[in-house]
């Protein structure tokens, strides 16, 4: 019961139900008040039995005795026929047969509304007389007419039906109106789910309620803040890297003038290491601005290219055929290079494999290194997180390689999972959308 529409519907339905119940209770109380004396049904049954057993000479006396203001009795040899100014009441008849079954003991009954010419078309009002025809056991027919509360009760029945019908119509109408109000919210929820790194502003759905608009405005403001934060960070990293580049360029040139060849070589190596760090940091910062479109790329041939750079056989590739994905070739090549580099560095070798899995292409890079404990698998994808901090500066990484890989994969709408390799080592699984 999570949906907004469903919840509102339930509230409305319960409300309407309570309303209907209250109405019925009111009517019930009303009719209680008015009634005096035994219900007509029981009276009519009693009269029927009497009439069946009283000798005929006494019948007129019986009729006179029972007739009153509210009740009139007629005994006839034939049933009520069309043309008798009697309107059949099928619902009341059905209900009556059900309720009076016991007392009737097999006698057939019918309910009618007593009509004078003008009133047949009028809906049954509380004052119209109602007649109950009972087929007596000796073939005669007893007609008992009543005014007042029976009619009132039948009227209540009719009213109840009308109320139910009205409830249904109003209910459906309200539901439709509610749905229309909720729809902008549903649209908004769907739009928010589609937000991506480009952080484009949302348009408020047309004809949306004020609160929904406020929500959209707030979301757009938040996106704006995020965008500015990201831009500021990118700018910072880019300008630091750029300035570092200038100093490194000077140092590299100056290194040529170091007369001690040993010192010169070490200086050149350190400068190269600094440059590598700068390049990675810059790459990460620039990824944030990347918006080149995706194109179909054959991951198998890209992988072959990356593997070919390691001619010594430490890196192997198993790909059954072309593996087309939607991506950016330069970025994906970088992913391959970084993953292979890690596998070589920590595991001494890398085994790549590609396979198709439904609408996705899966790339696996596996090594026989120490692996990564489960607790660190998410952290390791964060920038500057280092697992080998204990190692010396020259031997450890800077913590950017996997962060760059994770960022690129995310921007491709793919996923990356680190796992234990059966038999020891690390399995990196990268999944990308097939083209």
């Amino acid at each position: 019961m999570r949906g907004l529409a469903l919840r509102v519907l339930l509230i409305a339905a319960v409300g309407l139900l309570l309303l209907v119940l209250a109405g019925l209770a009111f009517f019930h109380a009303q009719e209680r008040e008015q009634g005096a004396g035994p219900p007509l049904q029981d009276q009519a049954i009693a009269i029927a039995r009497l009439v069946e057993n009283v000798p005929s000479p006494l019948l007129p006396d019986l009729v006179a005795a029972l007739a009153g203001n509210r009740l009139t009795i007629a005994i006839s040899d034939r049933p009520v026929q069309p043309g008798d100014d009697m309107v059949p009441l099928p619902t009341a008849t059905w209900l009556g047969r059900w309720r009076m079954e016991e007392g009737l003991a097999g006698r057939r009954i019918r309910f009618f509304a007593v009509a004078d010419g003008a009133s047949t078309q009028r809906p049954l009002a509380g004052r119209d007389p109602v007649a109950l025809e009972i087929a007596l056991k000796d073939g005669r027919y007893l007609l008992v007419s009543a005014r007042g509360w029976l009619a009132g009760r039948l009227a209540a029945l009719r009213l109840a039906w009308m109320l139910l019908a009205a409830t249904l119509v109003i209910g459906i109408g309200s539901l439709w109106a509610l749905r229309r109000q909720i729809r902008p919210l549903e649209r908004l929820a769907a739009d928010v789910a589609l937000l991506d790194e480009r952080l484009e502003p949302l348009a408020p759905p047309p004809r949306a309620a004020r609160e929904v608009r406020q929500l959209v405005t707030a979301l757009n403001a938040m996106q704006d803040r995020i965008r500015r934060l990201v831009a500021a960070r990118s700018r910072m990293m880019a300008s630091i890297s750029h300035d570092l580049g200038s100093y490194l360029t000077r140092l590299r040139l100056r290194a040529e003038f170091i007369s001690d060849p040993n010192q010169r070589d070490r200086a050149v190596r350190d400068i190269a290491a600094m440059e590598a760090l700068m390049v990675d940091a810059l790459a990460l910062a620039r990824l944030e601005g990347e918006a080149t479109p995706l194109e179909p790329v054959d991951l198998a041939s890209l992988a072959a290219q990356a593997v070919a750079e390691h001619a010594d056989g430490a890196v192997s590739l198993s790909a059954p055929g072309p593996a087309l994905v939607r991506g950016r070739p330069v970025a994906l090549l970088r992913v391959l290079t970084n993953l292979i580099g890690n596998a070589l560095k920590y595991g001494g070798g890398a085994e790549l494999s590609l396979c198709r899995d439904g609408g996705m292409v899966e790339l696996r890079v596996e090594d026989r290194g120490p692996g990564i404990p489960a607790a660190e698998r998410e952290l390791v994808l964060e920038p500057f997180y280092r697992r080998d901090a204990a190692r010396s500066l020259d031997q450890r990484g800077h913590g950017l390689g996997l962060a760059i890989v994770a960022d690129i994969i995310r921007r491709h709408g793919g996923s990356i999972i680190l796992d234990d390799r059966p038999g020891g080592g690390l399995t990196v699984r990268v999944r990308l959308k097939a083209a």
Partner: protein
Amino acid sequence: MAQPDIMIVEDDGEIGELLRDFLAADGFTVRWVRSGAEMDGVLALRPADLLVLDLMLPGEDGFSICRRLRASGPPLATLPILMLTARRDEIDRVVGLEIGADDYQTKPFSPRELAARLRAILRRAAPAAMMAAPVPGPAGPGDWARFGDCAFDIQARRLFRNGSEVELSTGDYDLLLAFVTHPGRVLSRDQLMDLTRGGNWEAFDRSIDVALSRLRRKLEPDPAHPTLIKTVRNGGYMLVAPLRRGPVP
């Protein structure tokens, strides 16, 4: 050639000085200026053999300078240019190619590597005819290739178009030879690199395109709509003009 004359345009004082000192010690004649405007003045007095152009310059940036040099007439339009760029991905390389740089080098760089690149560029730009082997004895059987309105003397490394000679650089010659020895076949960029003296092209693999557009300017009646050497999709090229090869022009 006599000591090659290198012009460096670099605004960072330290880098400019260091580079100048290194290259001078390595056998080049070096002039160093800090801006495009200065360069114009100095080149007007004495032309250079090669331009080392930094991209990030105050005032007019490297791209703009390169573009306008290429748009001007000879000799500046054919002045070999090597761009110095900060580390970037493909983007700058593609742009550099589009505006006609011959090669590029990212900073920081090894000055020895830079010197090697400079030498490679200079070699490609040297007039081909100068490198021709002397023809042995009395004029032996020649080896000419005719296509379009061009007559190509393969041994003498000279090209004639409608009778008048067109100057060929070594790079032009190597490229033209590759096409003439594989007429009617699609040659990919990689194949062209291999055929034209292998390793000289490593760094700027798309400078084949630059060299080709230079060659087209010399051969094609309408370089913008080539009819002799066509571009095939995915970066291959092919000599489509019918080729006649024989001992006489």
